[in-house]
């Protein structure tokens, strides 16, 4: 093969590579749209019969009678997520500040791998831990002080398990945000005689607030969608919980628990696919917003 021909072959190969890779990238971008459309398409039957508002605020979930009210499940999700954030936010914030502003590099070398390990533990193992430790603790130790009886399978159990599960995500994003702050800001404050903590309170936290908020939104959306671990410890009773010791039935758990029978009852599959669509849309929006905020922060501080 002479040289000109060989170069032509290389150019054609290049062209094929470039275009097929471009094609795959563009296809991959339509992915989210495809998921959204297919879930919507599956949930159209129920949206034709009931208005979205009625479905979201309906209290009764009786698939056999054709009543599909998502309200208890939405409340269950909100309760469990709320508890998880209340527990994990202060822990993560304090620990992230400590790790990025105070801790000796040696300590960081121990702690960060451990957080990675925590992040890698599968949800179902967290669920097992919940059943082994958290649920008995609540039913025998904690609940008797407050209510007459609780099985332990409750909002609180779900919240505690979820809190531990979202810790790795929250801490790592927090630490990244603190690391992105220009060091000069801290030095300026310290040189004026502020203590470390005053600098953190008045400079670091204030300056990184948008990023921290975005990280919390990210953690909330992770908690929203967590399924198996929550399903294992929440009790799964379809009423809106009134206290943290009541059982709850979050939206993802509903979806996971009923897939088996959904083909046999009319509209059931549409209702469940609607719940998947709801989760998808909410979490997509949350994620997109917080990622955009985080990207912007990275850019602003990089200057």
């Amino acid at each position, binding site marked *: 093969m002479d040289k000109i021909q060989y170069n032509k072959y*290389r*150019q054609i*190969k290049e062209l094929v*590579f*470039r275009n097929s*890779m*471009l094609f*795959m*990238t563009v296809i*991959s*971008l339509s992915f*989210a749209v495809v*998921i959204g459309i*297919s879930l919507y398409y*599956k949930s159209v039957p129920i949206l034709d019969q009931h208005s979205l508002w009625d479905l979201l605020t309906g209290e009764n979930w009786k698939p056999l009678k054709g009543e599909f009210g998502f309200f208890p499940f939405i409340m269950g999700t909100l309760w469990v997520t709320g508890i998880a954030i209340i527990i994990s936010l*202060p*822990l*993560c914030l*304090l*620990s992230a*500040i*400590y*790790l990025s502003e105070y*801790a000796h590099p040696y300590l960081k070398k121990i*702690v960060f*791998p*451990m957080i*990675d390990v925590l992040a*890698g533990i*599968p*949800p179902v*193992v967290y*669920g*097992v*831990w919940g*059943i*082994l*430790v958290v649920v008995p603790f609540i039913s025998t130790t904690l609940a008797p002080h407050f209510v007459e009886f609780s099985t332990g399978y409750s909002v609180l159990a779900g919240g505690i398990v979820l809190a531990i599960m979202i*810790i790795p995500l929250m801490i790592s994003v927090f630490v990244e945000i603190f690391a992105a702050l220009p060091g000069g800001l801290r030095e300026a404050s310290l040189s004026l005689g502020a*203590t470390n*903590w005053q600098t*953190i309170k008045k400079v670091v936290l204030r300056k990184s607030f948008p990023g921290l908020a975005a990280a919390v939104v990210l953690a909330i959306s*992770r908690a*929203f*969608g967590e*399924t*198996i671990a929550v399903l*294992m410890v929440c009790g799964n009773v379809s009423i809106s919980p009134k206290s943290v010791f009541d059982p709850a039935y979050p939206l*993802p758990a509903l979806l*996971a628990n009923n*897939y088996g029978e959904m083909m046999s009852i009319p509209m059931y599959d549409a209702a*469940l*696919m609607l719940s*998947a669509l709801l989760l998808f849309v909410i*979490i*997509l929006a*949350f*994620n*997109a917003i917080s*990622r955009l905020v985080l990207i912007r922060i990275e850019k602003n501080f990089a200057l």
Partner: protein
Amino acid sequence: MKHVRIKRLEERIFKTLMMAATLIIMISLFMIIVAVVKRGLPAMSWDMVSKIPGGGFYIGKEGGLLNAIVGSLYIVIGSIFLGLLFSLPIVLYINLYLPEKSRLAQFTRLSFDVLFGIPSIVYGAFGFTLMVYLGLRSSLLAGILTVTILIIPILIRSIDEVMRRVPKEMKDAALSLGATRSEMIRVILRQVVPGIITAVLLSVGRGIGDAASVLFTAGYTDSIPTSLGQPVATLPLAIFFQLSSPIAEVQDRAYAAALILTFIVLILSLSGRYYSRKFSKNKI
């Protein structure tokens, strides 16, 4: 002077609180592992990892979890293979072909960051609709496809992170020697091997431990599948189903399965660390 004392005190209080918070987080990790090991270890036996469930398995008689272990491995191996096939071209394209500040590249990164946050149950539901649409039953193939969708964002994000750090000079050097961009790929790929290994280990960990995505799609069976069309058991589902049994011996197996799964995941994340450290020493 009083002012100074107050601010010193405040400093000390908050520092203590911070240390306590860090300690609590570390302890909770230990508690999880200790709880799983303490409950799982007595239930472990050689039969658990070497036998498939026997006739009376679900009333507490003989058999083990080999079906779930092998099933999980099948699913993960299949989906890593498919996942790399999809994600490598995308990462290579946005890093080597597109200019540094390209809108398309930024949008792609953003969209996979967002997809990474989508819960696995939604992917499971999507996989299920896809399965119905294609006329598949719950099977190994459907499970592999769903887990592939789940891990593609992880693969892309973590490979991209390493590939972005390849020095621009290296690309320039390859191009200036007359290589086309597709020929340059070979040079760059060699540089990011540790990144790819880490990404694969991460996604194996995620894929093997995820229950919600395979719940709809992979089914469950007591035997080891011999073709892509058969249903397949997975470790997380083995834990999940057996824990809901009222029989204590069956529940024990769930704890044994949890121990096996935790062990696998710990090995993966530790070796991931080891690899990325080993390779990063040789990096320029």
